[in-house]
């Protein structure tokens, strides 16, 4: 099942390879079918998932694959390395509460991304092949339980992303693409080193040989004394944790490694921005939850405070930077930085409320930010500009658009009744409950006000008030005295058209529904999160040493 959901897009990519480049519509439909099939599979997985099983780590004395579900595990590459023993890389997939939410999110955002890619005219064939490759890589990252496999998928994401920004992007696309590429590569080089170090430090109790299995690595009992990252090698464990953290933090992106994000967003075409903000950023925090923290719990305990401080910096710094932006897309990009700060803060709390809030925030930020970028795309398509000050009074002329914008904007600023509120609230609840992160939480609440400030201010400047004299559109008065506007070279419908509504309405419904009753998603997470908290707790550590 998981293999299907991972490789469906790549199969679609192969099919597209066989379709002549002139058959644009067929290419699009093939991609859409693959994405929809992925969505159906995701729903099936969701229905079959048993939320009472924890995952995270193999229970002592229990099944060696832990309580993961939908497991697929076969040897992939097995080699005898002579004195180093056999090299075993496995094709090992499985889901638990942490990954299933991300699988659902990825499937959803992939569908939205295909729909959003519909108007792309430039080299459609190449675009969709790369898009499907990206889709496979993202999904693969979330279900891989073998570190090596994870790393392969992780690197596999880079290539399509680089070209998708570099070819289909805006005017400064090459700079943005190379910046994204180098930054991420920089992080993953370190990840590679740590991965190999871990390999030589861990023995899979089942086979007695070294392993890349993340399930085995998450159990501190499997580390061998005297190895580079085993017990007794604290210094190296600290260094390994730190470089791994930086690798993931770049993806989040965490201050001060965040500057690639605004550039990448501004240059990327709308669907790629949606994918980038909706899914890719979550890989950073997912990697922390899956790999970085549970593999080095004692280092995490020591570093909680620092992570929390960086979370707070992200929240407040991102909000302030967003407040100063003139480009709407850049503002939304900084808002992503701010909102991913909540995830970091929740993780730093390391208790159930905080971690739940963080994971739930990852899901909610995915849906909400997807909406935000889609909405930015809508206005950019029409006006070919995103300068906030060039608009004004749009609410009078595009009421449906304005209505959706209000839902998305208020979801982003954390209005109760919309999903973002619950996750932010839980992050605060969790981080305030821990004495160590309490002062950080007390500072971070400022984000509630400044988050509202930049969103409401942009809302006012673009949609409320009167049409500005130098606005990007012309005013016409019809026979009945009603005012209309038209954008210079926009032939389509002024307000949202059917395709745009097809993308936005389901997202809006999800945002509202999960804001009123979060249990359908939250219920999947709780057992795993509670387990993760246990794994990270100092109690668990004392058993190791």
């Amino acid at each position: 099942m998981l293999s299907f959901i991972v490789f469906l897009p790549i199969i679609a990519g192969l099919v597209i390879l066989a379709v002549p480049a002139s058959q644009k519509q067929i290419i699009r439909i093939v991609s859409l079918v693959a994405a929809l099939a992925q969505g159906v599979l995701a729903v099936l997985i969701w229905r079959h998932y048993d939320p009472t099983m924890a995952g995270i780590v193999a229970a002592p004395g229990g099944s060696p694959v832990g309580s993961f579900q939908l497991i697929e595990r076969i040897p992939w590459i097995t080699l005898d390395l002579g004195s180093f023993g056999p090299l075993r890389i496995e094709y090992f997939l499985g889901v638990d509460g942490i990954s299933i939410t991300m699988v659902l999110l990825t499937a959803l955002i992939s569908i939205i991304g295909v729909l959003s890619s519909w108007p792309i005219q430039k080299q459609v064939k190449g675009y969709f092949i790369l898009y499907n490759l990206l889709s496979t890589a993202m999904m693969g990252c979330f279900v891989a339980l073998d570190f090596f496999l994870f790393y392969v998928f992780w690197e596999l994401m880079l290539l399509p992303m680089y070209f998708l920004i570099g070819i289909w992007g805006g005017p400064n696309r090459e700079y943005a693409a190379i910046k994204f590429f180098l930054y991420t590569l920089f992080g993953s080089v370190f990840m590679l080193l740590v991965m190999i170090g871990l390999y030589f430090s861990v023995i899979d109790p089942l086979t007695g040989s070294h392993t890349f299995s993340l399930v085995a690595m998450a159990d501190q009992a499997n580390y061998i004394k005297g190895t580079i990252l085993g017990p007794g090698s604290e210094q190296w464990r600290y260094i390994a944790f730190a470089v791994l953290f930086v690798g993931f933090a770049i993806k989040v992106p965490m201050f001060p490694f965040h500057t690639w994000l605004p550039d990448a967003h501004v240059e990327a075409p709308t669907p790629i921005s949606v994918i980038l903000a909706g899914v890719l950023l979550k890989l950073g925090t997912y990697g922390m939850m899956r790999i970085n923290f549970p593999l080095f719990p004692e280092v995490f305990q020591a570093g909680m405070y620092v992570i929390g401080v960086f979370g707070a910096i992200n929240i407040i710094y991102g909000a302030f930077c967003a407040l100063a932006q003139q480009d709407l897309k850049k503002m939304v990009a900084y808002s992503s930085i701010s909102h991913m700060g909540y995830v970091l803060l929740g993780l730093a709390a390391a208790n159930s409320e905080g971690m739940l809030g963080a994971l739930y925030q990852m899901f909610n930020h995915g849906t909400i930010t997807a909406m935000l970028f889609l909405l930015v795309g809508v206005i950019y398509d029409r006006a070919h500009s995103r300068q906030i000050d060039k608009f004004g009074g749009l609410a009078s002329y595009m009421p449906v658009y304005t209505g959706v914008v209000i839902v998305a904007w208020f979801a982003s600023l954390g209005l109760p009744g919309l999903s973002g509120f619950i996750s932010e609230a839980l992050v605060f609840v969790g981080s305030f409950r821990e004495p160590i992160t309490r002062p950080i939480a007390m500072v971070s609440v400022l984000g509630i006000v400044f988050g509202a400030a930049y969103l409401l201010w942009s809302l006012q400047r673009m949609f409320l008030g009167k049409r500005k004299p130098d606005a990007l559109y012309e005013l016409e008065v019809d026979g009945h005295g009603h005012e209309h506007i038209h954008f210079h070279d926009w032939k389509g419908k002024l307000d949202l058209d059917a395709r745009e509504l097809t993308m936005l309405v389901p997202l809006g419904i999800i945002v509202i529904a999960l804001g009123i009753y979060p249990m359908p998603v939250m219920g999947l997470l709780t057992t795993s999160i509670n387990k993760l908290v246990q794994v990270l707790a100092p109690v668990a550590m004392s058993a190791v040493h």
Partner: protein
Amino acid sequence: MMHSLIQLSIAVLLLPLLSFVVLIFFNRRLPRMGDFIGLGLVGTAFGCALTIFWQVVVQHYDPAFRLAWDFTWLDFGNVPGVGPLQVKMGIVIDNLTAIMLAMVTLISTLVHLYSTGYMHGDPKYGRFFAYLGIFTFSMIGIVLSDNLFSIYMFWELVGLSSYLLIGFYFYKDSAADAQKKAFLTNRVGDIGMWLGILILYSQYHTFGYQEIYEHIKNGDFHMSQAWLTAAGVLLFMGCVGKSAQFPLHVWLPDAMEGPTPVSALIHAATMVAAGVYFVARIFVLLTPEAQQVIAFVGAFTAFMSATIAITQHDIKRVLAYSTVSQLGYMVLGMGVGSYSAALFHLLTHAFFKACLFLGSGAIIHAMHHEQDMRWMGGLYKKMPWTFVTFSIATLALAGLPLTSGFLSKDAILAGALGFAQVEGGGIYYLVPALGFAAAVMTAFYMGRQVWLVFFGESRTHLKPAEDHGHDAHAAHASHGHDDHGHEDHGHHEVHEVPWNMRFPLVLLATLSVFIVFSPDPLDGGKGWFMHLVQTPATVVASTEAAHEGANLSVPEAGKLLAEAHTDTQHVETAPAAHAEAASTEGEGHGPVYADPRQAEIAHMTHANHWNAIKLSSLMLLAGIGMAFIVYVFRIIDPDKTAQNIRPLYLYSFNKWYWDEIYDATIIKGSMLISKILAWFDANIVDGIVNGVATIFRKFAFFNGGVDKYVVDGMVNFTAFTVQTTGAVLRKIQTGKVQTYLVMVVVAVLGYFAFYIAQLIK
């Protein structure tokens, strides 16, 4: 099985929401843009609320009535270190809830009815009713909540509703500014409230009021007492935002940008009432220190806004500041421990203030969107219904005996006097002093308003010419005119408003008479409200003395306190009287308080009942007398006086310059910080990134040269060698891709393994 009252209350909650959902999507497809749906659904909600009111208040008539229901909303599972943990949502119905429900839905229904006249012809007529629906829904949610989390959620939803309604005329910049200001100012308060909630949650892992109070009562608050005080003050910050207390009061007068029926809803029944209601809900956990903070904030707000109201020209602005001032009274009442008096004032104020706002709406409507009182006058003949109802409500606001306002205001002021005496006089007398000073000014500015609007000659023609006409009208939009666009402007005959706007006025004016609340026109304590909504016993051990006193019998504790405060004359008789009050439920009303401070305050409040009546009547006469002297007899010329005390006049007219101060400090400061940080981000953080990239590129360029001539030369040489060797080695190649891949991986891993092995050594 759910209790039928709970079912009814859920209906009350959801009907306005249904109205919102139906109207926001379908208003254009419905006849009359669906106003009948809004009115019908909210009216039905009122019917349900009335049934609850009847069953709880009339049939049970029991101060201790309480009914609760909840369900699990979030399930955290088995949380490490805590155990099974859930967040519950629920409803609690007690006397206060029942009364509030009836009040909120009644006023909302009346506002709906009134709006069918007032908003008639507006292009967004249907959407207006949708917004009224969600506003009512959010407020009812606050009233029904049984826990801090859900109250916070509805609290923010009230913020959203007010955002939508204040900015109803969003195409005006002033309205767009006002709606943003209201939301953000409220959010500042909400931060405090949220932190307060977090403090309590971090102790008890629950948001439920009842559980939290049980815990505090049992003394298992593990942080220092200062944190509990902090929690109280922080929670109170939410009220400071919503109920427009100093220093977050600035949004409320600007909120006049919304259509006038909205002002009535905001100022009377929904938003601002929410703050005071919330303080009532958390009343029992407020420490004495927190109460003092609350009392001073309330007193100062009451005084400050009264001074501002005196000089305003805009009819709605005067009322807006009077609302702030009256809310100050309520908050003051909460602070001095007069819980039931404050809530009583909340209720009476809701009716007469709604009447005043709807009345002013009628005037504005009839005057074709003239809001400046300087150009009104002589309306009593043309609008007799409006005049009579407006005047009754004005008298209630000023606190004339026989009105409802007198009963409640007097009770608060008596509490303030009692509080000052119990706290030991001195600075604490400032609280009642400011309260009485505000009472004088209230009587004065309301007298001024009634005179300017209804009496004298019509001054429409005196309005400066440039203020006339449609263009000027738009230019002066900042005064908050309601734009309808359905009528021409200019000179028109002024007519009384139609029945659907008149009926709410009459009903609300009727509800401003004393007999509705108490059989005794001079003592609200004898009425049903004060009987049903009694000040609950605090769960906090108050002071050191009180702490010791908890082990003593109540009279002894009273003596202890009395000894501490012998400098105040009234207290001398306290011990005996107090013992009597405490043991025999003094004169038939008021419960017995175990906490000595609370018992003392309750007693002194009662003892000061007549003092307060005498003083406040005196203040009322003084205020109205001044208004007569200035405006009726014209003994003092207001304009000349204003010239004579010009700095003071300007200080009042410009609202103590709070807007300017905030703009110069907080807003400008935030913008500056954001600009600096954005610059820092673009130039320093990103500059470092780009700088590193440049260094690498330079290095790569140099390296490229080396590469081309040195390395490549070697490579070419090697290639030659390889070619020759390759011819030989070709034999051992298998041609299988897997093998190649494996070799590559092995090579990479081998290299790293070697490297790491070195490191380990």
